[in-house]
């Protein structure tokens, strides 16, 4: 069964460094998403992406964040200058339609020291 994959599974970085989290969505899906989950808290929406542009973003998704689909298969989340409070699990998701089920990847655990 097709699934969303994410790399790396765990990323450790120093505060102020840039990180790029990578995702390969399900191949025929058109809508892509990033969510995050701080330890012990809810899963929170960050951004959705369709047709090579951001379709919706949350207040969390400020100028430090950016997303890109550099080729036909990858979808990336970049955090320009990481802060301690960016430490969380970051989940990529994809769906065939905007109103379809969103399928989640296994997540990248980001630890900012």
């Amino acid at each position, binding site marked *: 069964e097709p699934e*969303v994959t994410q790399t790396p599974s765990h990323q450790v970085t120093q505060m102020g460094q840039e990180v790029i989290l990578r995702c390969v969505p399900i191949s025929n899906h058109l*809508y892509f*998403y990033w*969510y995050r989950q701080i330890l012990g*808290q*809810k*899963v*929170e*929406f960050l951004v*959705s992406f*369709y047709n090579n542009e951001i*379709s*919706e973003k*949350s207040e969390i998704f400020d100028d430090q964040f950016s997303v890109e689909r550099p080729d036909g298969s990858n979808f990336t989340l970049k955090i320009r200058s990481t802060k301690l409070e960016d430490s969380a*699990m970051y*989940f990529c998701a994809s769906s065939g339609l*905007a*109103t379809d*089920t*969103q*399928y*989640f*990847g*296994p*997540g990248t*655990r980001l630890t900012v020291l």
Partner: protein
Amino acid sequence: SQKIEQNSEALNIQEGKTATLTCNYTNYSPAYLQWYRQDPGRGPVFLLLIRENEKEKRKERLKVTFDTTLKQSLFHITASQPADSATYLCALQMDSSYKLIFGSGTRLLVRP
């Protein structure tokens, strides 16, 4: 803004019993309501989706109901098994929005 509450942080039941989890929301009815399972350190796994105009959906041992008058969804696992032990998340999607709004989840423990 839309708020979601899931009935309890944890639910502890005996194997073979039916687990019933509750999701309540405020304000407007969502277009879609979804239930996910999450194991520790893993991503949410989709279980069931129910639309605003649907009352009930079933899949194997799972059943979800949606009552827009009560602003509530119930999620049932019948003949529960220890392997069903996990956190169950309720998520709403409003019309004309792409995002899922998640509840904080209910941790289910099924004792053998």
